[in-house]
């Protein structure tokens, strides 16, 4: 960790604004599809729920990768997230198993 590794700006990567707008459009479209699926009842309930969870995780990932710059920043920031996300998966897993036992979804 010498001082020589400060060869670049550590504050935020320089990303052109059209890319930010493109991500916003994708988020808006995904949200519209989510709403249509939830309110339209086109698919079986369980399949709809699975798709909605997938879309939600994808939207969260898009915001974190592009708006929070995890895609462009050093991987150290992403590594910080590994342990808590692992814990969250365990927590939700336990809750969902308990929920399934009561036929919640």
């Amino acid at each position, binding site marked *: 960790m010498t001082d020589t590794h*400060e060869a670049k700006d*550590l504050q935020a990567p320089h990303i052109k604004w059209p890319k930010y*707008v493109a991500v916003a459009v994708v988020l808006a479209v995904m949200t519209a599809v989510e709403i249509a699926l939830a309110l339209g009842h086109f698919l079986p309930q369980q399949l*709809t729920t699975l798709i*909605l969870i997938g879309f939600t995780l994808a939207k969260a990932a898009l915001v974190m990768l592009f708006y929070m710059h995890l895609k462009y920043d050093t991987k*150290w920031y992403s590594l910080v997230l590994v342990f808590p996300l692992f814990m969250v998966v365990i927590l939700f897993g336990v809750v969902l198993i*308990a929920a399934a036992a009561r036929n919640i979804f």
Partner: protein
Amino acid sequence: MSDLAATQGHAPVEPGSLPGVDNRKFGVWLFIVNEIMFFAAFIGLFIAYKNTPEMADFHAVLEQSLGIIGTSVLLFSSLMVVLGIAAIQRGSQRGLRLFLLLTILLGAVFLGIQATEFTLLHEHGFALDTSSATSAFYVMTSFHGLHVFIGVVWACGVLFAAWRKWFTPQKYAGVELFGLYWHFVDVVWIILFMLIYLI
């Protein structure tokens, strides 16, 4: 070394820092990790009450249109923050101020929508202590609303700094750090929106 780095337009690197890591940003990420665990507990509690009879009664009176508008507002506010960062990177002080102002306005609108939602639910007889399901809903969404409120106050501080031209294309970490927090609040709402209004 720090002065030299600042004059050359780079963030100062403290001795012992990880390669390429800005300790200020790393600190905000650690704070976010802490918040993830908080919200995970509240969300877990809400899921545990999902589709119970109490939650079904409650869900029937929820205004989905308010949730949809609130989500759109918060997603749009996240775009405003990154456009503000892009603006200051280009050297546009005016652009930064404009996008920060829009972020504050959109945050305030979201809080107004949440207040309206709570008022409507209260009129239907669903208060914090009505049932375990309503408690789970109010605690989770209020905690998120508190984060939005703190974000709006923080954004006002960043706007003040922008007004005084404290940020330059070489020095804008204050905007970036606020942005990390604001986007995290947005990510949490993306999850809450799906859980509360869609499934």
